[in-house]
Structures are given as structure tokens and as C-alpha cells.
């Protein structure tokens, strides 16, 4: 076993260490910062390839390393790393896509004054995501997961002087944290029922038969709670609202969030703990998987509809990500784990390509993002145009040369085989048309037609176009291992040997989806070919267009229900705190004070007055007596004489 298998932790550790290093660099050391980040990523990529090789040796390879984090009571909390095909494939994708994005950023962020900090955050982001992938413990996965959240917060809000960026960062953090609460509880319940958080532990892990036996009937609850986390991170309905706003970050960040890190984490999480979802499945259907499918379908369709009515080049891509993630969830839900992960991997390449392409356009147009002001860029930015077209073909699901087409094909197959209903399948087919439609619309607006406000546009420098070319080539090369004729990646992920079978290429489904994609592209060509300032859809259906353009009013709905409600509750609590609870205390102390006043009154008027009266009487009496003590002998003698006389009278009377 190669040394990297036992030291797999180095893969996330290297970017994290470099991130720390860059953070302590002075902000003028720009070249050093970018260099360090890129070198860190290259090392991580190298290690990932080294780690990938052993997983090829035997189908279903899995190497596990565990260690004790800390002990409490009489139990040890153990964490660990796992290397299996799922992790290895993700490692390669993340590091490779990440590397392209890092290089692109050198050009894109060239003018930014916080250049070094940007690269520190990027490295941190990549390291945290790599941690998610190799975690063999739900807790370690959660820790890395939260660090991914922190990194996205820092990067979305990177242009910190823009209030909108700060608001978007806050929204991303809080929205994903709502999902994370479910994840947190699910993790705790899993820990309680199975007694371990390790996935694989030589037969004692939570995902191994003995662990699953212990979890038993609570698997549905645990799976659904964990799925909450995936809904938040992967931008699924109803927690998808942060993802389009995350466009406030610099474009390379959007690429990273939408392709290699962050949103991939949710889908990956479901795939990682899939045994919990499928436990006790009848015909491959469990209640938790039903939920996954429903959420996925709703998300996929909703997002592709919204994408039709957006004018911001990045927002269209953002909604396409949401929709593709919904598709992956559907795939996982119908049992196509490998298909979902394949689409995730392919999506990582072509979505990074599309975002960086959009970044190149934005850069070339001096930070213009409105597609209505673009147009005719295909001659001005040829490299960007060509690579963007490849990305668009991938996303629209054109098979043959494009990896995204094959993986989407695979997912459609899976949905068709789902025993319960064909509805998800039909809805996903509708999604295929919509995707082709909105992507072609975007292409036409940006690259075709007449030049609108694009007179001084220019192609981006080599440092930015090279990553585009690499990503485009990758997305095409990847297609080789995805075809039904030689479904190597599928077999690799499922831990089976791959077979060569050219007959599998001929199948009705392929023609059907080709037809649908062609229909989508053709329809878009007809609709938008001569589109001017107003969108044809807006002209035909202004109400619908407005509804979609305003993102179905979901943000406004949340703003006026949940957020407004919490705000009211907060202010009510504050009010109660000041006036009710503290009021009770004040009432109590007031009662004490009132009692004090009363006692004082009683003292003054009842007790003290009596005492005063008594003492006054005594004084008067004293004064009376004192008056007799005049000091005059005559008076004393007189008194003695009177006394004597009285005694004599008394004596006589008694005798």
C-alpha cells in the first residue's frame, strides 16, 4: 500500500497549511501569495493522483484510518479518513478544477488590493472541501462541512465594502446553517443509536451491516435530518435562496462554490451516507429516498424556469447549478448513486468552465454582467466563445463528445427504471428541454447577434484563457470513460469491473434525449435569434416573465413570513424582557419599597409617635420636678416643714 493511502490527511492539510501561511504574508507579497496557493493546490493534486492509483487495483477498494480525537467518560470519540473510489474521484475533480480556478484568479483578481487574502481564503476553501471528501466520520465531515461554510462566507463577502456582498454572505451562512441544524441533530441521533460516528471501522462502522442493524428503524429519521444539511449546502428548495445571491462574490469564487466545493458537498454527503437512505428499501424505495426525489424534482424544474427569465450572466448559471443539483438528487433518490456522482464530477468541470467563461466575459467587458448589453462577442473573444460553447453543450446534455451529456443520459435511464412512477422521468425530460432553452438563450444574447455595448471589449489574457481550455479539454476527455459502450467510471464508483460493449450505444433513450435537446436549442434559436432589449417571453407572457424574473417571489415570501415573524418575536421578547420579566422584578422591589414606606409611616406615626409622646411626658414631668429643685433653702425648708406637718397628722390619725 502506498504511503499516501495511510497519510491521506495530507491532501486537505497541505492547502490548509498554505492558507495559514498566506494569511501571515504581508499584503504586498502578491506573487508569493498566488504562488503558494497554486503550489499547494498542485501538491494536493499530485497527492490525489497518487491516492487514485491504488483504488484502481481492485474494484471496491477501501482503505480506512481511524484515530481517537478525545476521550470522555469511558468512551473514545474517534475520527478517521477513508479512501475509496468515491473519495478518490472527488479528490481529483476538486483539486484539478480548483487548480484551474486558482490560476484564473491570478488574472481576474489582478487589480484587487486584498489579493493575498483572497488566495488564503481560496486555499482554505479547497482544503476544507477536501476534508469533507476524505472524512470517514460523520463528525469530521461535519467539521469540514462547517469550515466550507465559513470559507464560503468569507469569499462571498470578499468585497466587504459592498453592502450587497456582506448581505449575501450573511444570507449564505444563515441559510445553510438552518439546514446544518438538521444535520447536527441527525448526527447526534446516529451517534446515539449506532454508538459510533465512523462510517467504516472493520465491521463496526455505522454504515456497515452491524451498525445499520443497530440503527434499524430510526434510519429514516436520521437520513432525513442529515438530508436537511444537504438541502442547505446544495441549494435545494426551499433553502436554495442563498445560492443565486452568492454571485456577489468574485467570479472565481462563484466557480469554486458552484463546481468544485460547497454545493457539491451536499450531494456528496447523501452519496456517502447512502446506506442510511436505502436501509430497509422495498424495490429500491424508502420514505427518505422519496423525499430526496421530490425535493430534487421541484428544485430542478423551479430553477430552470427561473433561469429563463434572468438577465445577469452569472445568475443564469447560478440557477442552472441549482437545477443540475436537483437532477443529481433525483438520481440519488432513484438509486443511481454512481450516476449522480458522475454527473457531479462532470458538472464540476463544465460548470467551472462556464463560470470562468462568464468571468472572462465580465472581465473583458469591464464588469458588465447584464446579458442585454452584451452580444456579438464571438469574434471579439474567440477562445472564451469556443470554450463557453463546449460548456454549454455539456450543460444542455448533448452526448457524444460531452461528458455532461452522457451523465445526464445515465440519470434519465435511472429515472426511467424507477419502479414506483414514471413522473420523475417525464419531469426530468421536461428539464432537459428547459436547460437547452435557457442556455441557448444566454449564448445568443452574449455571443451572437449585434454588438450592443461591447465596443471596447477584449479577449482575456492567457492566464485566464488557459484554464478555460484545460477545463474544456477535461470535460471532453472525461466523456471517454462515461459512454455506455465503456462505462468505466460507473463501474469504478460501483466497485465493479468495466466491460466494453458497443451495442449499448444504440438505444431509444439516447435518440429521445437528443431530440429533446435539439428541440430546446432550436426553439431558443427561433425565439431569441432576433431578440432585442425586451425578452420575447416577456412580450408574450409579461406576468409569467415577471413572476420568474422575480425568482417566484420566494425571497420576498421568506422576508415577509419567517424573517418578519422572527423579527417580531425578537422585539416582542425584548419588550417582555424589559417590561414584563424585569417588570416583575421591579414590582417585587416596588413592593419592598412600598413596605418600607409603610413601615416608616407606621414607625413614624404609631411607634415613634408613642415613644415620642412618652418621652415628652417624662420630660414634662421632669421639668415639673426640676422646677421644684430651685436651690433655694427657704423653699426646701418650707417643704420639710410641710412634710413634717403631714407626718404628724398621719401619726395622730393612725394612733
Amino acid at each position, binding site marked *: 500500500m502506498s504511503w499516501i493511502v495511510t497519510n491521506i490527511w495530507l491532501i486537505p492539510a497541505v492547502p490548509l497549511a498554505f492558507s495559514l501561511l498566506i494569511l501571515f504574508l504581508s499584503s504586498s507579497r502578491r506573487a508569493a501569495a498566488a504562488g503558494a496557493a497554486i503550489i499547494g493546490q498542485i501538491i494536493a493534486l499530485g497527492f490525489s493522483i497518487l491516492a487514485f492509483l491504488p483504488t484502481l487495483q481492485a474494484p471496491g477498494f477501501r482503505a480506512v484510518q481511524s484515530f481517537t480525537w478525545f*476521550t470522555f*467518560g469511558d468512551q473514545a470519540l474517534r475520527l478517521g479518513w477513508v479512501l475509496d473510489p468515491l473519495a478518490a474521484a472527488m479528490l481529483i475533480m476538486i483539486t484539478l478544477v480548483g487548480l484551474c480556478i486558482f490560476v484564473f484568479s491570478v488574472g481576474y483578481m489582478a487589480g484587487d488590493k486584498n489579493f493575498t487574502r483572497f488566495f488564503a481564503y481560496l486555499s482554505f476553501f479547497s482544503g476544507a472541501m477536501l476534508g469533507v471528501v476524505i472524512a470517514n466520520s460523520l463528525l469530521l465531515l461535519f467539521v469540514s462541512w462547517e469550515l466550507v461554510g465559513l470559507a464560503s462566507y468569507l469569499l462571498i463577502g470578499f468585497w466587504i465594502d459592498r453592502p450587497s456582498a456582506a448581505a449575501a454572505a450573511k444570507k449564505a451562512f444563515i441559510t445553510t446553517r438552518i439546514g446544518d441544524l438538521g444535520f447536527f441533530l441527525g448526527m447526534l441521533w446516529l451517534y446515539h443509536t449506532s454508538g459510533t460516528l465512523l462510517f467504516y471501522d472493520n465491521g463496526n462502522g455505522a454504515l456497515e451491516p452491524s451498525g445499520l442493524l443497530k440503527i434499524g428503524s430510526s434510519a429514516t429519521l436520521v437520513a432525513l435530518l442529515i438530508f436537511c444539511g444537504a438541502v442547505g449546502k446544495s441549494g435545494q428548495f426551499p433553502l436554495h435562496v442563498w445560492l443565486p445571491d452568492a454571485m456577489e462574490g468574485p467570479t472565481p469564487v462563484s466557480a469554486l462554490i458552484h463546481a468544485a466545493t460547497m454545493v457539491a458537498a451536499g450531494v456528496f454527503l447523501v452519496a456517502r451516507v447512502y446506506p442510511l437512505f436505502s436501509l430497509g428499501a422495498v424495490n429500491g424505495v424508502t420514505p427518505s429516498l422519496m423525499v430526496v426525489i421530490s425535493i430534487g424534482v421541484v428544485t430542478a424544474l423551479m430553477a430552470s424556469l427561473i433561469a429563463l427569465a434572468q438577465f445577469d450572466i452569472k445568475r443564469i448559471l447560478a440557477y442552472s447549478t441549482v437545477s443540475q443539483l436537483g437532477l443529481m438528487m433525483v438520481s440519488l433518490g432513484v438509486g443511481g448513486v454512481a450516476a449522480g456522482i458522475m454527473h457531479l464530477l462532470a458538472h464540476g468541470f463544465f460548470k467551472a468552465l462556464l463560470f470562468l467563461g462568464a468571468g472572462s466575459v465580465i472581465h473583458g467587458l469591464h464588469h458588465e454582467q447584464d446579458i442585454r448589453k452584451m452580444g456579438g462577442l464571438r469574434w471579439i473573444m474567440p477562445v472564451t466563445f469556443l470554450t463557453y460553447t463546449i460548456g454549454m453543450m455539456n450543460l444542455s446534455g448533448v452526448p457524444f463528445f460531452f461528458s455532461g451529456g452522457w451523465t445526464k443520459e445515465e440519470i434519465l435511464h435511472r429515472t426511467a427504471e424507477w419502479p414506483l412512477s414514471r413522473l420523475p422521468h417525464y419531469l426530468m425530460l421536461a428539464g432537459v428541454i428547459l436547460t437547452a432553452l435557457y442556455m441557448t438563450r444566454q449564448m445568443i444574447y452574449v455571443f451572437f447577434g449585434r454588438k450592443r455595448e461591447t465596443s471596447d471589449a477584449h479577449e482575456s489574457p492567457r492566464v485566464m484563457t488557459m484554464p478555460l481550455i484545460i477545463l474544456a479539454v477535461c470535460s471532453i476527455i472525461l466523456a471517454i470513460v462515461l459512454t455506455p459502450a465503456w462505462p468505466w467510471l460507473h463501474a469504478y464508483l460501483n466497485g465493479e469491473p468495466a466491460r466494453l460493449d458497443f451495442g449499448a450505444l444504440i438505444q431509444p433513450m439516447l435518440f429521445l434525449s437528443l431530440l429533446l435537446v435539439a428541440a430546446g436549442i432550436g426553439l431558443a434559436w427561433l425565439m431569441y435569434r432576433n431578440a432585442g432589449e425586451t425578452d420575447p417571453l416577456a412580450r408574450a407572457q409579461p406576468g409569467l416573465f415577471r413572476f420568474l424574473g422575480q425568482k417566484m417571489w420566494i425571497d420576498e415570501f421568506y422576508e415577509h413570513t419567517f424573517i418578519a415573524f422572527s423579527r417580531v*418575536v425578537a422585539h416582542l421578547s425584548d419588550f417582555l424582557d424589559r417590561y414584563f420579566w424585569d417588570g416583575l422584578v421591579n414590582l417585587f422591589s416596588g413592593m419592598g419599597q412600598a413596605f418600607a414606606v409603610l413601615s416608616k409611616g407606621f414607625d413614624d406615626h404609631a411607634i415613634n409617635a408613642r415613644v415620642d409622646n412618652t418621652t415628652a411626658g417624662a420630660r414634662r414631668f421632669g421639668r415639673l420636678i426640676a422646677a421644684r429643685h430651685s436651690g433655694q433653702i427657704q423653699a426646701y425648708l418650707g417643704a420639710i416643714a410641710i412634710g413634717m406637718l403631714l407626718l404628724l397628722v398621719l401619726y395622730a390619725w393612725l394612733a
Partner: protein
Amino acid sequence: MAGLITTLIVTPLVGALLVSATRNYARALALVFNLITIICAFIIWRNFDPGLPGLQLVERHSWLPAIGAEYLFGIDGLCLLLVVLTSLVFPFALLAQKMDRSFCALMLITQAALYGTFTAHNFVLWFLFYEMSLVPAFLLIKMWGGENRDRAATKFFLYTFLGSVAMLLSFLGIYFARGTFDFISLAELGKTGDVLPGKLKWLAFAGIFLGLAVKVPLFPFHTWLPDAYEAAPTGVSMVLTGALSKMGVYGFIRLLLPLFPNEIATLGPWLLTLTVCSIVIPPLVAWAQSDLKRMVAYLSINHLGYCMLGLFAATAPAVRPLEEMHAALSGVVMQMFNHGITAAALFYFVGLLEQRRGSRGIDDFGGLMQRTPLLCGWMSVVMFSSLGLPGLNGFIGEFLIFKGSFAIAAGYTAVAVLGLLFTAVVFMRAMQSLFSGPLTRACSTFLDLSSHEKWAIIPVTLLMFAIGIAPQFLFNIFNTTVVHMARLLA
């Protein structure tokens, strides 16, 4: 080594005397004495055997046998951890602001009182120190506080004092019935279930509960806290939240839980409801605050609420697996320590902002990241620690508390988790309005962290990372004690 604990307690008192006699360098002298107490605490740690469950380094002398008072000091894992915490929070607080000699002297007296509270094991002696902490704290707020200091100080003093009196009466009742003030004998009494006969037992329970619930504070006995923390000067706020607030939780662990297991079981649902309110409502209130200090004060209530959740979950419900009790109780002890340093650091930063700006309204600042990146960066670390981000200290305690509590009292814990969300909302809002956006004009002349400010904050931050990444060294201190405690409470 005999007399170590006495030395620990006497050192700050001697310091207070000397400091009040000096003319200059009062704070430096106070820091020197803090250095001595740190060394003392360190020696105690070295001499402490973490593998033994009972009291160690016991100092026992006859004192006033007629009233059952005994000079009895000792250390177990929990005590030691709190002693260490106190030794860390006080120097940190002394570094937070300028203070004259009487200020320093009062701080040192408070410190001695805290050491006494955390090490005394006879009720009379314990109560003496418990009350002794109140007077200097009262004077500190009253004499050096901000706006409304008179009212806040009086409220703080009277409210907590009222609770203490109720507690004292309860203990007198127990003493007259059972003739002991010794904590260990009291705990054994509690196990038999007849601390006092009949209704009297409930009366005694109510008295002690009130005293401690006010001290922690537990909702709805908390209203003195925001006023006191807001009015207190920075250093005092740090001490109040970092160290003094642990006295209440410690009291619950040491006195109430062992003495009244049946009563707690009977009242379980009510107690758990109170703790859930303590966790969920204060961060909501914090969200509605515009004063940074008040905001942090409310979050402090929330964090101590987690401690109380762990404690009651580990004692109240009928079915309590021992391993989940271990988790909850370990989490509570961990959380006490973590909250101590994190909340103190939060107040420290609020103090820095207040020094620079002259006010501390959340809207008085804006765009600080452009002007003072270091201050914002380090403050963010502390805020993330407070909201329980993994990798920093806060997460460890909260994770264990929730793990134990969720397994034992699932419904209450599921609601309590909302506290984690609201805390995040509060901090996100604060970070947004303090650090981001355009730079406010009033903040455009701010200086970034000075070197001595860095020296105050870096050790604390490193400690946060150390605990968050490799917490074993803290568990080693108190694990045996927690296991012993769980056996006692099972």
C-alpha cells in the same frame, strides 16, 4: 504540598492590600500578583492526580465546631478547571482597561473570593466566599460603571443577595435537621432521599434553586444581568461573565443536583422548559439590541443555558444511559471553561471598540474591516468561537452537551438547537454592520490593534484553537471527576 490552596486564596488578598497602598503602577503590581496565582494554580495542577475521583490537596482544620463550620479546602477535576479559568480570566481582564489602585484592589478581592468559592467544601466557608465576591463586584460597578451604574449595581447586588439569603435559610434548615454543612455528607444525604422531612424539603429546594438560578442566571431570573454587564466597566464585565457566572453553574453541580435528585426528577419537564427558554429567548432578545455590550450579555445567558440543559438532561429524566450522562456532563464542564474565555474575550473586544469610538451602538460603526483588519479578524475568531464553529473551542462543549441531551431529552434538545441558529443570526448581523459596508466617518481614524492589545488577545485566541483542535488536555483534568459525578447522580 500543604497549604497550596490557602496560598492561592491569600495571594490576591495580600495583593489587594499592597496595591491599595501603592501610589503608582497599581495595575502592574496587580498583574504581578496574578502571575503568582497562575504559578500557584499551575503547581496545584502538577500536584493534582487526575486519575483519582475524590478531593485532593485537602486542607482540613477545625474552625467553628459549634455551628458545623470547618476550614475545608480541596480540589477535584471540576474545581481545578475553574481555578485555572479564574487564573486566566483575571489577568486578561486587568489588561483590558486602565484602572486605578482601588479598582485593582477590588478586582483582586473578587479573585480571592472566586478561588475560595471553587475550592471550599463546607457550606459555611463556601457561602462566605460566595458572598464575598458580591461586595467588590457591586462596588466596581457602582464606582466605575457607565450610564445607570447606580441602579444596575443595586439591582445586581440586591437580586443576587436575595437569592443568597433564600439559599442560606434553606441550608440552615438542613443543618438544624441533619447537623452537617459538609458537601460530601450532604451529597450522601441526598442519595438517601431524606434531606428534610415532607414539605420542608420542597421549601429548602425552592430556596437553593432560587439562589442559584438567579446567579447563573436561568430564565426568567436573568434581568439583572444585561443591566449589570452593560453598566460595568469592561474589565468587570469580563470577570462577571468569565468567572463569576460559573459560580451559579458550579453551585448547581455541587449543591442542588446531589441534594435533591427526586425533586429534580419530579420537576424535570419544568426545569428543562426553563433551560430551553434560557437558550432560545435570550439570543432573540440579543438580536433586538442596538447596544453591543447588551447584545453580548444576552448571548452569555444563552451559553450558560446550554450548561443548564446538559445538567438537567443528565439528572431529570427517568431513563438516562450512563454514557449519555458522561457526554452531557463532560460537555457542561467543557462549556463552562470555554464560555469563560470566549465571553470574556467578546467583552474585551467590545471594550476596544468602545475605547476607540466612545460609544458602542451597533450602528455607530461600519466598514471597520477596511481600517482595522487585525481587530476585525481577531474579533471574528472570537465571535465564531462563540457561535460554536468547529475547530474552535465552543464547538466541543456544545457538541457533547447536545449529544448527551438529545439522546436523553430529545424533544427539548431539538427546540434548544434553535439557539445555535439565533446566535449565528446575531453574530452575522453584528459582523455585517461592524465590519462591512463603507467605512463610517467616525471610524476613519481608528487605530488597529496596538502591540499590547495583541499580547492580551493572542494567548487567549491560541487557547481557543488549541481546545478546538486537540481538547484532550482539558478532558484529562476533569474526566475522572465527571465519571464519579455521573455515578453519584445515576
